[in-house]
C-alpha cells in the first residue's frame, strides 16, 4: 500500500510540474513563443556569413604560414576571400543601419592585435595589408574581428 501511495505522490508531483506554467500565469498577456523575427533571422545569417568569411581568411593565412599552400595559390585565393569578407561586413553595416542594434553590436571589443611573426618558411608575406590575426587557426580561435578590409581587394 505504501508503494502505491508513493506512486500516486510521484504522479501528482509530475502533474504539478507539468501544469506549472499555467499555474504561474493563469491569464498570460502574451502567450506567444519567443521566436526571432525575419530581421533577426537575417541578421543571424549575416553574422554567420561574416564569421565564416573571416575564419576562411585566417585559415588561409595559417595554411600559408605552415607551408600547405604555395605563394601563388595564396595570392590567388586571398582576393576573393577578402572581397567576400568585405561584402559580409558591408551587408552587416547595411542591416545595422536598417534595423538598428543587433547581435554584432553585442560582441566584445577586440583586443589589440599583436604583429604577426613572419612565416617560418615562406619569407616575407606577399601582402602587407592587414589581415586577420594569423593564429590561432580559425576554427576555435579568438572571436573573429573585423579587419581593415580594402574595398577593392589587397594592394599587391
Amino acid at each position, binding site marked *: 500500500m505504501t*508503494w*502505491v501511495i*508513493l*506512486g500516486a505522490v*510521484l*504522479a501528482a508531483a*509530475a502533474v504539478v*510540474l*507539468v*501544469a*506549472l*506554467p*499555467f499555474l504561474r500565469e493563469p491569464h*498570460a498577456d*502574451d*502567450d*506567444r*513563443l*519567443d*521566436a*526571432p523575427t525575419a*530581421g*533577426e*533571422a537575417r*541578421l*543571424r545569417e549575416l*553574422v*554567420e556569413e561574416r*564569421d*565564416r568569411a573571416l*575564419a*576562411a581568411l585566417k*585559415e*588561409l593565412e*595559417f595554411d600559408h*604560414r*605552415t*607551408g*600547405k*599552400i*604555395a605563394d*601563388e*595559390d595564396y595570392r590567388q*585565393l586571398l582576393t576573393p576571400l577578402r572581397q567576400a569578407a568585405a561584402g559580409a561586413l558591408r551587408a552587416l553595416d547595411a542591416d545595422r543601419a536598417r534595423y538598428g542594434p543587433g*547581435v554584432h553590436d*553585442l*560582441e*566584445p571589443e577586440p583586443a589589440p592585435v599583436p604583429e604577426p*611573426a613572419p*612565416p*617560418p618558411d615562406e619569407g616575407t608575406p606577399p601582402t602587407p595589408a592587414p589581415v586577420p590575426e594569423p*593564429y*590561432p*587557426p580559425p*576554427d*576555435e*580561435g*579568438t*572571436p*573573429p574581428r573585423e579587419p581593415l578590409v580594402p574595398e577593392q581587394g589587397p594592394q599587391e
Partner: protein
Amino acid sequence: MADLGRAALVVSFGLALYALVAGGLGAYAGRRRLATSARNALLACFGSTLVASAVLATALLRHDFSFVYVASHTNRTLPTAYALSAFWGGQEGSLLLWLLVLTGYGALAVVANRRLLRDVIPWVVPVLGGIATFFSFVLVAVASPFQTQTAPVDGAGLTPSLQNPYMMAHPPLLYLGYVGLSIPFAFAAGALLSGRTDERWIVATRRWTLAAWTFLGFGQLLGAHWAYTEVGWGGYYAWDPVENAALMPWLAATAFLHSVMIQERKGMLKVWNMVLVALAFELSVFGTFLTRSGVVNSIHSFAKSSIGGWFLAFVVISSLFSLALILRRLPLLKARTKLESALSREAAFLYNNLLLVALCLTVLWGVLFPIVTQLVKGESRTMGRPYYDFFLRAFGLPLLLLMGIGPLIAWRKTSVRSLVRTLAWPIAASAVAGAALVAVGAGSSSPGLIAYTFSAFVLGTIAVEVVKGTRATGSLALLIARNRRRYGGYIVHAAVVLLAIGIAGSSAYSTTREQKLLPGQTASVAGYHLTYLRTDEIQNDPNRTGQYAVLRVGGRWHGTLRTGQVTYTGFQETDEDVGIKTDWLRAQDLYVIANFQQSSQAVYFKILVKPLVNLIWVAGFVFVLGSLVALWPDAREQRRLAARFAPAHA
C-alpha cells in the same frame, strides 16, 4: 515495491506522450506556456524513470526474487557488483537503462540549450518525447521489468559470459553511445521542423555527438577486450551481427563528425549531414532490434523476445519521418558554396565520408544478408569473415591513407607541388619504415605491410602538422589549447593508427599451435617454452566450479600461467578462462586456452603468440585522451559563441 516501479513507468509514459503531443501542438501553434509545460514533462519524465530505475536496482541488490526479472538474472551466490550489473544483463533492464539515459540526456540538452536555441527547443522537445514514448510504451506494455511472482528460493543466475568485470562497463558505455546519438538527431529534426537550419543546432550538439561517439568507440573496444579475455577463441572481433550493430552507427557518426566541419566552414553538405545524423540514430535503434529480436544468430543474443517487431516498426516510422522532413526542408538546406578543387581539405573530407559510409553500408549488407536470404530463398545464409575482411581492407586502407593526407591539404585548394613538398617527410618516413619491415621479415603479409607503411605515413603527417603548427604559433601548449578540436582529432588519428598496427600485427603475424600435453611435457611456440605442471580444482567458490591447468613458462618469459574451464552455478555451459601473459617490451601476448579431457590426464592446449595486440587496447586510451582534448571546454570559444548567438533583440 514493484507497484512503485510500475507506477513510475506509467507516469514516464504519460509524461513522454504529453511531451510529444503537447510539445508538438505548442511548437506548431506558437504557444509559450504549452511548450514550457511540455519541456517540464520531459524533465519530469527523467525524474520518474530515475525512480523506476532505483526500484529495480534496489530489488537486484536485495535479491528480491518476487521480481521475475531479478529471479531470471541473478541468484544468491552472485557477487553484489554482478547483481547490480544484471540491471543491463537482461532485456527489460537494458530497455529501462536506455530510457533513463535518453530522458537524462534529453533533459540536460534541453536545459543547457534553452537560450542558444530558444526558437528550436520547442520542436526538439516533442522529438525527444516521441522517442521516449516508444521506449516507455515497450517497458509498460511489452517488456516490463516489474512483473512479479511468488518468490522462488533462489534465482536462475546471470549468464556466465556476463560475469566479467568488462561487462560492468561495456554495455552501459554502448548505451551511453547509442542513446547519445538521439540528441543530435532530435536537434537536427528540431531545426528542420522549426525551419531554422542555421549553424546553431550543430554548435549545440557538437559535444553531445562527440561524447556519444567516444562512448560508443570506447565501449566497442572494451567489448573487444571482453571477447579476447572471456570468449576464449583467441580473437577480439568476430564480425558478429551485434558487434556490427555497434560499429555501424559509430561509422556513420564518424562520417558526420568530419562532414559537419565542412558545413561549419563552407556552408556545404547540409543535406548530407542531416542524412548522416538520421542514419546514425536509426542504426543505433536498429542495433537494439538486432540484439533483441533474434532475427540473426549472435553470441550476444542473450535475450530473444517479441519486442523485435516493435523496434522494427519504430525504425521504419522514424526513418520515414526523417526522410520526409529532409525532403520537405530541402530548399533550406541548399549549399552556399561549391567545391573549388578536387585537391582540397573539403574534398578530402568528402572522400573520407564516402569511404566511411561505403564501409558502413557494406557491414549493413553483411548483417542483413541472412535475413534477406531467409525471406527470398527460405534459408538463412551468413556472410563470413572473408567478406568483411575484404571490405575492411578495400575501404579501411584508403581511409588510413586519407587520414594522413587530409590534414596536410589546405582548405579550398592545394597545388600538387605544395602537396608533394608537404608530404615529402611523411612519404620518406613510410618508405624507410616499409623497407625496415621487409628487412625484418614483415613482408610475409602484404596487407600487414601496407597497413604498417600507411601507419608510418600517418604518424609522419601528424608529426609534420604538429611541428609546423608549433613553429607558426611558437608554443605547442598554446597550439593545442587554442585548437582543441583539431589537435584532439589528431590524437584520435594516432589512436586509429595504433589500432591499425595492432590489428595488422595480431592478425597477420600471429603464431598458433595446438598440442596435447601430459603433466611434465613441454611445447615450444615462438620462443616460449610451456611445461604443463598440474591441474588445480576450484574450491570453496559457491558461484562456480571448474579446473585450471598450471603451466611453467620459459624462454622469452619466465613464470607460471593458469588457464582453465569454469562452470557457473545454475548453468550447464562451460566458459574458458584464458591464460594471458603480456610482454609489454615486445608488445605481444602469450595466450593459452586449455581443453580438459575426461578420463585422461592429458590436456589439449591452444597456444597463440599475438604480436602487437596490446596496441589495440592502448589505442582505446589514446582515443579517449584525444576525445577529451577535443571535448574540453574552451572559454574563449564559449565567449565567441555567446557573442555570436546573443539574442538579437536583447
